[in-house]
């Protein structure tokens, strides 16, 4: 099968305007994913499915990944004048990477028996129900998995025919697979609480009555 560079160059020719980036993967056996912007991912997916050399007709896996806002630290060497002498000093540069969510697709070809090609799309932010594009119109197999992504990650996939919660119940608030999700305090009485359980239990003790 073609490598990600070849696929990228052919995609850019076929879908004008698509912003495609090959992401690094440090795992030697793993595949390098292609990140496509949300505006063009539907056209890219259609091309990947119908192209005679690729024929990626089988969308095996769809999932979300949460990347919260993180502080990246980078060491850079800066030339500074210290006590009248120019010296090279290491300085730590801090940058804040804003948080985002990703939807990852693993594509194979049943006809040509090759794969996988890993496709990713990124949302603009981590808001509740932040939008991305559904690929269910291209691969029907995404239907339930994209509903799961909506349910657990809170990514609203535009163009999905039946987007509602699938594993959690209707009316559930919150998105459990996000990294900052806090489980509800469902405390049950314990006769001998200790450690964190004790801390949690203390919140539920009735206030002490002073005579």
């Amino acid at each position: 099968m073609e490598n990600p560079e070849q696929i990228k160059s052919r995609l850019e020719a076929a879908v004008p305007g698509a912003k495609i980036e090959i992401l690094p993967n440090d795992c030697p056996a793993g595949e390098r994913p292609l990140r496509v912007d949300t505006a063009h991912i539907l056209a890219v997916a259609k091309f990947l499915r119908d192209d005679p050399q690729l024929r990626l007709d089988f969308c095996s896996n769809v999932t979300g990944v949460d990347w919260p806002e993180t502080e990246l630290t980078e060491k850079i060497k800066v030339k500074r004048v210290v006590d009248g002498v120019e010296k090279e000093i290491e300085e730590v540069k801090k940058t804040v990477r804003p948080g985002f969510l990703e939807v990852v697709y693993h594509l194979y070809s049943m006809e040509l028996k090759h794969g996988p090609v890993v496709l990713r799309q990124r949302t603009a932010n981590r808001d509740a129900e932040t939008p991305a594009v559904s690929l269910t119109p291209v691969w029907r197999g995404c239907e339930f998995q994209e509903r799961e992504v909506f349910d657990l990650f809170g990514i609203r996939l535009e163009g999905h025919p039946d987007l509602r919660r699938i594993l959690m119940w209707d009316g559930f608030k919150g998105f459990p697979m996000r990294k900052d999700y806090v489980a509800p305090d469902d405390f049950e009485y314990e006769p001998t609480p200790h450690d964190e359980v004790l801390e949690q239990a203390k919140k539920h003790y009735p206030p002490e009555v002073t005579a």
Partner: protein
Amino acid sequence: MNAVGERPSQNYEILPKPSETGEPLGELLEVSMGPQHPSTHGVFRMDVVLDGEKVMKLKPVFGYLHRNHEKIAENISYLGSMPYTDRLDYFCSMTNNWAYALSVEKLAGLAVPERAEYIRVIMAELTRLQNHTCLVGFFAQDMGALGTPLMYAFREREKILDLFESVSGARMMCNYLRFGGVRCDVTPEWLAQAGQLVDGYGRFLDEFETLLSENEILLARSQGVGVLPRELAVNASITGPMLRAAGVNYDVRKVDRYGIYSRFDFKVPLGEHGDVYDRYMIRVLEMRESVKILKQALRDIPSGPVMDPKAKLRGFRPKSGEAYGRIEAPKGELGFYLISDGTANPYRYRVRPPSFINLTILEDMCLGHRIADTVVILGSVDIVLGEVDR
């Protein structure tokens, strides 16, 4: 039971459509089949809209066993998730272990010793035998053959579970595989016992088939029912025996050749019609192929270590990166997608559950059939709710 239109929820809004000839269709009835229903193989619900007995609409509803396995796995070590994978598809814990071990090995670049590879194949094929045997038993039970076929199936399954118990200590929750090998070696007596079972399995299958394959009721209930067209099967990511019953030649054992499957001589049975009977028949034929693989594996198994000496059980921290590993589990393609950030816990842990995705086309298969047929169609999909709900 509610007459349609009484339920206010917008998700289930169903409006009776006039028929093409302009005749009134009568009152549509919405029936909630499940979650406590003997035919749903667990806590699973089908919201069915009926016109008389005809299915007009069907929506599967599940999540009753949801425990967010993925979130739990992201908060514990890599090895800590191994026993949890047993609980996904609780019929096939060995193959679940294998899929997870394969993904972690791909992520961390571990090699598996020869003997361990053979043991894995033996365990996986025994799992396939017992899963398919049970499925056929349940399937006959769903059609009203109460008791007998299921008890025959469970008799054979128990023999395989005895083998699992003697090697791993547990009948169903085996937790037997490790990254870079298997937990403990099998004894020569165990191999002899397994050989005996495999030699006798063909006879059991003959007996089972004599009772079922040409049974008039089974033929009447399953032929031409729940037809899944080939194109839809591919597009809807259907995998496993269901896909092959629709005539698509795709078996991960042959395509990826993971482990040492390239060394064995076996065929991939394919269906022609994609109906319920084909799905039944594919499973019987797959069992016969599994017996062939088992015979070859038990004959060729070499001696040697069963663990990669480089593999660490404690303090296991794979380098950052991501990997997707998949195997052909009895129910379809079982995959694990892992992202590591270099710490002891996986950053992202995802299970690709075959029976969850195979449910996507349940509605397409059931439309236009009678409600009694949905039971048979669901039985032929082969779902386990532990895996669907995770």
